[in-house]
């Protein structure tokens, strides 16, 4: 219900909502289903701010915002990719689960994989503000939640982080800060207005990156 409400209030955020209509990666990167040119009068914007300040990004989902809200997600082995446009004050957050879309056959959500999420998120941000200026990225997550188990599949966090860095480098996006690895979960809050990312660790420690 929350997501539906958000979608009503923020028509820009339609990208992550395509659960039922699996789009191919090509169609998504070429033509993201964003109604990007929507820009509300400043009065409406202020009204929205008081109503909603935190927008949750679900697992394998991504959201792009041009309003000064905070995008929130929880990650363990997943990685939260926060890409910010400092000049137009917009940005987006993608919650990826796996390093590469090649390793599974169920690849209909681009925001599920590091290699497809970065291009999709970048083009969505560029469309939202028609900006060509330098984007900056901050990442958090990639933990190994159960270090005592010597299972290679459970240590996918490390692979996720490496894949995200590679994808960012391929797109020419500068990685300015990171809070990765470890053995605890993180609550990531990405402030669109100033591009700051507030990471709260599982043990209660709060870090601003």
């Amino acid at each position: 219900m929350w997501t539906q409400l958000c979608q009503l209030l923020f028509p820009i955020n339609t990208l992550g909502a395509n659960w039922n209509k699996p789009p191919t990666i090509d169609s998504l990167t070429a033509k993201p289903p964003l109604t990007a040119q929507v820009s509300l009068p400043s009065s409406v914007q202020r009204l929205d701010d008081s109503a909603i300040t935190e927008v949750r990004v679900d697992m394998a989902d991504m959201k792009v915002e041009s309003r000064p809200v905070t995008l929130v997600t929880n990650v363990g082995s997943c990685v939260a990719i926060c890409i910010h446009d400092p000049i137009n004050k917009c940005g987006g957050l993608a919650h990826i689960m796996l390093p590469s879309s090649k390793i599974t056959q169920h690849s209909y959500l681009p925001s599920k994989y590091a290699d497809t999420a970065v291009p999709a998120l970048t083009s969505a941000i560029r469309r939202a503000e028609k900006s060509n200026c330098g984007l900056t990225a901050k990442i958090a997550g990639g933990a190994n939640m159960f270090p005592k188990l010597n299972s290679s599949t459970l240590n996918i966090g490390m692979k996720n982080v490496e894949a995200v860095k590679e994808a960012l480098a391929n797109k020419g996006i500068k990685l300015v800060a990171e809070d990765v690895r470890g053995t605890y979960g993180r609550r990531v809050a990405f402030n669109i207005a100033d591009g700051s990312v507030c990471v709260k660790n599982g043990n209660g420690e709060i870090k601003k990156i």
Partner: protein
Amino acid sequence: MTESITQNKDTNNSIDLEIFLELGSIGAGNAATSLSEIFQEQISIQVPKIHTLPPHLVPKFYEKHDVPTTAIYMQLTGEADCDILLMFEVKEAKKIAAMMTMIPVEELDPEMEASAIEELGNIVIGSFLTALSDFTNVNLLPTPPQRTTDSFDAILDSFLIKQLLDSDMAIIFDTYFKRSDGNISGILMLFPSRKLQSVLTEKAKNWV
């Protein structure tokens, strides 16, 4: 052609669910018996719900994103793999530990709580394991239980990732631990590997 394939899938899924529900009832029955012995009073465990979901939709389904959670995790290896995860909200876990140790919640020290919860995990998960291997005749070896406390989503996501690599469905039990003076609820999740799923489906065919 495509339609018949989809239908086939559906029937397979419904068989899986039935058999899992049966397994769940047996496992829950075993667990209830051992718990009643420990607490020296009637404890009933129900398996009221069973869900199959695509793994990435599980956090959205529970809506417990930031809730501090204590989880006990056991991995079954051997002929087929299965991950079993038992989760309680932190304050519920405290209540359970207090019940088990007969010490009031305020006086409970963390080590005592941890070992009580691990023991509970052993009992509940062990009961399910017995049911599972009796039923399938598959030899399953459990790892020692692991305990962790973190936010609900963070705990879950490693398992969901692992599940995604293997299968596109997660099978989840919601269990409720019932004691005479009120409910304590926990979630028991089973993530059977594709191999175990097919073993069970095969069993179900002979069984019906």
